């Protein structure tokens, strides 16, 4: 297990469960909740970023890229499986999947 996600001891928690910093959901692993897992198929992806918009956990990580015409754009780099809860929204909303091309995001049973 990633040391970053190790759960704290009771002595290390602030009194009353107060949260003293913003954005700390990044330090909390929700990946273990999955029963179904989205798998990104780079070869079919058109980088429209619909999945990135819909993902409730910010689990689609981006990188800088270029269109075929040479314009700057953001592209999908990978899925952050430490935070993806396997809700399947990306699979449902992916326009490539809807056109029955690809698929660009497959939904497969989580291996146990």
């Amino acid at each position, binding site marked *: 297990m990633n040391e970053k996600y190790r*759960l*704290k*001891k*009771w*002595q290390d*928690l*602030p*009194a*009353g*469960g*107060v*949260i*003293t910093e*913003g954005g700390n959901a990044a330090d909390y692993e929700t990946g273990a909740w999955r029963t179904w897992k989205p798998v990104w198929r780079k070869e079919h992806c058109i980088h429209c970023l619909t999945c990135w918009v819909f993902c409730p956990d910010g689990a689609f990580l981006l990188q800088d890229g270029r269109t075929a015409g040479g314009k700057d754009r953001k592209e999908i780099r990978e899925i952050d499986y430490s935070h993806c809860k396997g809700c399947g929204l990306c699979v449902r909303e992916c326009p490539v999947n809807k056109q029955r091309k690809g698929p660009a995001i497959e939904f497969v049973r989580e291996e146990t």
Partner: protein
Amino acid sequence: MAEAMRQINPDVVAAFPITPSTQIIEDFATFVADGKVTTELITVESEHSAMSACLGAATAGGRVMTATSANGLALMWEMLYIAASMRQPIVMTVVNRALSGPINIHCDHGDSMGARDAGWIQIYAENNQEAYDNMVMAPVIAEHMDVRLPLMVCLDGFIISHSIETMELEEDQAVRNFIGPYRGLHPLLDTDHPVTWGALDLHDYYIEHKRGQYAAIETAQSVIEDVSERFYRTFGRKYDLFESYRLEDAERVIVAINSVAGEIKEVVDSLREAGERVGLLKIRVFRPFPYAQIARALRGAKVVIVLDRSTSMGAYGPLFGEIRTALYDVEPRPLVYNRTFGLGGRELFPDDIRELFAEGERCLQNGKVEKTFDFLNVRGD
């Protein structure tokens, strides 16, 4: 109690009137109207709202107080637990009254005893002086940085709350010096350091938070002892976790809470004059419960009679449960039994207490308890 609140001058009081605690907030409202305090008094539409407003004001970063009784306390139920688990040092006077039904306004301890697991510190008072003194100590205990827990100061409805007694009030400045300024812990109004209070907690953290809360109320015991000691050095009145009244060589001991203790002391004194080895252990701090200290104090006792002024339907009384647990490891283990009395304001007379001690003597002679549990002064038995 209102005088103590005037001296403490809390930032916020949110309250809803309910007999017999009403007088406290009425008197305090007069202090607010007369400009004798700078408190923001929030008059709300129910006790649920009263405790919610207290909680909001406390998380904002204020020193907060309120008062209630019986059904009012019951209506606060949800927020009692939240105030304790959010570790907000709210101080509340609970004027003990029977919790319906049938509806009744007189004294018993069913209200605060029902709230004993909510995570609040509970301190009980025999008379007005003790109630005032506990109130002066309350913010110091609750706001201690190793504690940060809400605290109930409990006293008997009408018997104490509406009786005139001679008592010593301390100087305003002396009380304020004793209490000191309020120090917030992650207050919401500190906008340079934004925080989130009351976030969701799941199975992977909830029990850790509860464990920390438990540690805090355990720590409260030594803090109560320290603050009581400082109170004694400052104002000259001595308080322990419980009061040991003529316990040194006592064979038969009554354990009781609040105003009935005054009457028991009278009976103990008269029986002592007749050479009987009787005594009283009066509970002051019920949460956290001082098991080890009480076991030590009762080590020489042969018969321990526990008086509960509340009833846990289908079970023994709540005080009895604690006392018998505390005595389990005492060698030789004394005989111990439970009597429920005084529900809804039913009187207990000195002759009843003499009879209790006489029954204790019979148990001592026969080497066994006559009845583990019974009601006192109820028609039909």
